[in-house]
């Protein structure tokens, strides 16, 4: 019974972290591809997207099997450290946005900016190199974050197949929703999702860093749920404290 609970808590946190992280990155990539497609034509947008997906697949094929050969304690320490940094960055951003210290991520604004950037560049009668590069960069950079999340979380938890499947489901789901609603991606509650991902990544980061440093967690995997609760509480407290200061609202910060 205890073992079943421990396994399920680890799996729940893994599935949640991978799903939310992949969904957020997919929303960002899709916004760029839609902007490129609507402005410069779909051919170059799809070509850029396709080449980026091939490059990402090649990266997974090269680095995925190599990670399995890294000693587990080293892998968990490195992965834990990366997840800690990455998770704290996401959480910090979400806290600043929720408390009014940073502008909310606006997909409509990103869409408009990308369209303006593309329209400023003249069209080419031959292949549209600008559109191709824009779509490629958008998909490749956001996709690279998905790859890192899936590889690090999946390999450390010995559940790479599950992590890859969850990532695939998230990407397909967001893709379908994105195509259906076209440019209405700003309706996605991205900040709330980012906060959720931040909490889950920091929880996993804490857990794996400890495992890598031979810390024996009480309750083993169940400790992940304690971390999730702790970091949610801390996030809520930080937002509440920052919101009480009226000078914070909409003052804006670049970092």
């Amino acid at each position, binding site marked *: 019974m205890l073992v079943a609970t421990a396994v399920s808590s680890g799996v729940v946190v893994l599935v949640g972290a991978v799903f939310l992280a992949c969904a957020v990155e997919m929303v960002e990539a899709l916004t760029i591809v839609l902007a490129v497609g609507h402005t410069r034509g779909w051919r170059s947008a799809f070509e850029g997207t396709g080449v980026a997906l091939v490059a990402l697949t090649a990266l997974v094929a090269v680095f995925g099997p190599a990670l399995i050969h890294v000693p587990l304690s080293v892998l968990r320490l490195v992965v834990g*450290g990366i997840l800690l940094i*990455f998770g704290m960055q996401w959480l910090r951003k979400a806290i600043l946005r929720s408390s009014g210290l*940073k502008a909310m991520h606006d997909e409509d604004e990103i869409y408009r900016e990308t369209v303006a950037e593309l329209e400023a560049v003249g069209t080419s009668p031959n292949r549209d190199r600008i559109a191709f590069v824009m779509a490629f960069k958008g998909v490749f950079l956001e996709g*690279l*974050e998905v790859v890192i999340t899936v590889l690090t979380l999946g390999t450390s938890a010995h559940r790479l197949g599950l992590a890859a499947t969850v990532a695939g489901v998230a990407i397909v789901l967001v893709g379908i929703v994105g195509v259906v609603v076209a440019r209405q991606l700003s309706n996605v509650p991205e900040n709330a999702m980012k906060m959720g991902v931040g909490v889950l990544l920091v929880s996993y980061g804490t857990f794996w*860093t400890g495992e890598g440093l031979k810390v024996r967690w009480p309750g083993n995997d169940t400790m992940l749920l304690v971390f999730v609760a702790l*970091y949610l509480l801390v996030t809520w407290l930080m937002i509440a404290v920052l919101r009480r200061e009226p000078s914070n609202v909409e003052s804006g*910060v*670049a970092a």
Partner: protein
Amino acid sequence: MNKEPTLVIRLLKGFGMFWWDFLVGDTPELFVGALIIIGVVAGLSEAGHHNAASVVALPLLVVVALALSVHRAQRTARRKGR
């Protein structure tokens, strides 16, 4: 003489830049904080064999690092607001 960097150099530079942006970016304090956390917990756990202290210190230091980074952003925002 052609001084354009080769494809390999450009790829390596791009790869390095990606990891720099990914891990350090505009929050170097979080990167340094994570290194300090790992150092402190390694000292407690591996060298000192203080497991209970490590269990408490690790999440506590994460909260401290996050709070300091948020505080830094708040100060930056105030300075810009003036």
